[in-house]
């Protein structure tokens, strides 16, 4: 079993529809963002574009993709993988929504990646 925990980060409504918010805490030293799609699905990704670490949380979200604000690379929210012809991927962070509360599976500080 991993030592990681499920952490509550707030209610679904605290994230704008077709929007995202960054988390205060880091994930193995890297920022994380929680995304909410038009149909209320929630995803979490490391908030660094595979291209030049652009903050994906600031991108335009359409369907289940987000377009990086810096140079426009489009990333799938489900798997963190860039939509062809772009290449690259970011880490996804497990999320679950229970009774309107959003939980993220964040490892404990110092847990190995």
């Amino acid at each position, binding site marked *: 079993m991993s030592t990681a925990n499920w*952490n*509550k*980060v*707030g209610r679904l409504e*605290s*994230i*704008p*529809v*077709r*929007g995202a*918010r*960054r*988390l*205060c*805490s880091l994930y193995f030293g890297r920022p994380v963002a*929680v995304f909410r799609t*038009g149909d209320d699905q929630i995803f979490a990704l490391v908030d660094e574009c595979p*291209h*030049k*670490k*652009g*903050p994906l949380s*600031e*991108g*335009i*979200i*359409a*369907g289940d*993709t987000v*377009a990086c*604000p*810096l140079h*426009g690379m*489009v990333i799938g929210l489900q798997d963190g993988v860039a939509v062809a*012809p772009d*290449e*690259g*991927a970011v880490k996804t962070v497990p999320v679950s929504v229970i009774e309107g509360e959003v939980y993220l599976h*964040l490892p404990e500080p110092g847990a190995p990646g």
Partner: protein
Amino acid sequence: MTMERNPLMRLVVIGNGMAAMRTVEELLQRDGGALYSITVFGAEPHPNYNRIMLSCVLAGDKSFDETVINTREWYAQNGITLFSGDPVAAVDREAKTVTSQSGRVVAYDKLLIATGSRPLAPSIPGLGLPGVCAFRDINDVETMLEAARTKSRAVVIGGGLLGLEAAWGLKQRGMSVALVHLMPTLMERQLDVPAAQMLQKALDRRGISFFTSGQTESITGDGHVEGVQLGDGRYIPADLVVLAIGIRPNIDLAKAAGLQIGRGITVFDDMRTSDPAIFAVGECVEHRGQVFGLVAPLWDQAKVCASHLAGEATAAFASKALATSLKITGIDVFSAGALTAADPDDDEITLRDDARGIYKKVVLREGKLVGAVLYGDVTDGQWYLQLMRDKQDVSVWRERLVFGRAIAETGKPVGPDFAAMPDDTQICGCNGVSKGTICKAVREKNLTTLADVRAHTKASASCGQCTGQVEALLAFVTGGVKTAKKTICACTDQSHDEVRAAIVGKRLKTMAAVRAALGWKTPEGCQKCRPALNYYLLCAWPGEYVDDLRSRFVNERVHANIQKDGTYSVIPRMWGGVTTAAELRAIADVADKYAVPTVKVTGGQRIDLLGIKKDDLPSVWRDLNRAGMVSGHAYAKGLRTVKTCVGSEWCRFGTQDSTGLGIKLEKLCWGSWTPHKVKLAVSGCPRNCAEATIKDVGIVCVEGGFDIMIGGNGGIEVRVTDKLARVATEGEVLEITAAFLQMYREEAHYLERTAPWVARIGLEAIRRRVIDDRTERQALFDRFLYSQKFAQTDPWAERVAGSEAHEFAPLEEV
């Protein structure tokens, strides 16, 4: 055969460069992944990148990431082990192992050496000084870019392809550049004297100074390079010296392993070295006495080598005639084969048109083409190259040959006649891709875009000079000149104009309504159409449509400009470029209080606070608001700046109060959303110190009136304004400017600046509606004022008051 007994043999590759990885790619295509487990050692700490493109990285036309050919994921996906940043230090042919610098020992059944070449270093004093570099790898480029950022004077030694591209790149990066060349003319091995002179003249005009016939005696400096001393006494001060005098095959490892060596590693026609278990490809090899310095022959070597590694034993490498071209934007040079007549039986035919900057020469021997040098117009280069390779008898065309294919083969249409072109005609010289290969890929794989063709055939994927031809060929195969309709994006078959017309005509007032009425293919659009629809709706229904922040680019959503590190810049409005001590003090206080790393005067006559953290934005705005400052919309597809000059208030030449008029214009227009950004300027007299004639609207004051100029742009493609009208009063200036902007707001395509829009619809169409037809002008003006009623609220003040608060605070764990 051994192959059957050893289903997975071990292939070790030394060198992670262009030739090596092309060979591996070719091998994988031949199912080599099932034959071999592959291990690659690379001295450089990067994945495999396109070395050719370093020139473009230096000149700022490409980022390093765009040059990466095989990403680390690619290696992983293909089961290849990559040790980058760990050069191989020794090969033990007895034990069949290689040992890397870090001590890894890996056994091989087959070894591929592709160590490329090393820059030649002359034996002169000062070579080791900091500030001296070569031009071979990304490390060198970084050294040069760093110098360009912090220093000013560069000297490039070597006037060949590399030296010239280095000089041009450094020039593009803002350095003053001198180029020292040993010979009297540039690129003497590729260009004859007239072509070289034309090239030098063109580069001279672009600001590079040349020191030809210059023998470098020493590089001088105390602790860092300070200059270059030439043998004839000339001295050139320098903060950076780039050596590009040639390359030498990198053979050290092969030599130590006891392989047969000439100038390079000796290889036979099957790319095997003197040890049958060891292959070599690329610039490190010597084949039948020849060494290599361009990629085209390496691709052939890669094919041959891969087919032998895959056990197809018939392929043989033979070198072909090669062509050189220069990757300097706007300078076209092509050269192949002989530069001049070698003996009295050879014929040279030249064409020279100095006015058009064109020079062409062909060299004929026994009725066949043996050389071509082109300057200024290189369209026929690949055709000449093919004629040379085919050793075709061209005597029938003799006197027309130099005019190019269209004229030589009279009766045939101008431009490449793809129908008549043989399938093996080479289109892409770098990658050796023929017409046949492209046609086949397009047909079989149903390719429709240039990007597809590049992905599948590699045609035009290296230096990019044949892009036009590849596009034309694609059009030819897919059914010719059918110009595909320009739709907003892939979500719809509708054009911008059709969508705009439907929004107004069908009274569509939400994005969902537009998508439903016009048959959108995606439920909620994409990052391209959403901002466009949002703008079109906002423009059509001011006061009714609710702006969708989630369909706006981050800058417009958070009212600040995102920077490359994710921080923001804040630019308050500075009306007409005029400020006060109190405003400056407030800006200074903000800079201190929030530890703003950079405070910069912008090109738009105001002050930029750069590097502000997102969480701090509302407080920064609050402080600026308190001093009476509002958002400068430096992020908006909307009114940006109104630049002014001092005008009649102070200037001895001023004819009108240009500053005052600028402020009036800015007060009238601020806050307005437009298809793309809009910039205005007012100059007090035709000396035009506010640069009004490259603005979307520029007013040039004259004695007794004002010239209204429109459609200018100082950006990517400079366009000088057209004169719309001369009017007598400030009132008319304000009304006509607003009417013009309203017409632009209502009719242009999203992300189309006024310059291309005016060019597209024509000045007359605008003049008719905003000058000649007074009622129409009034109506446009009224609509502009109406929409401004809703637009002129300071977005910063709104957010200081608490709107969109979640935007500026991160989520916390609870």
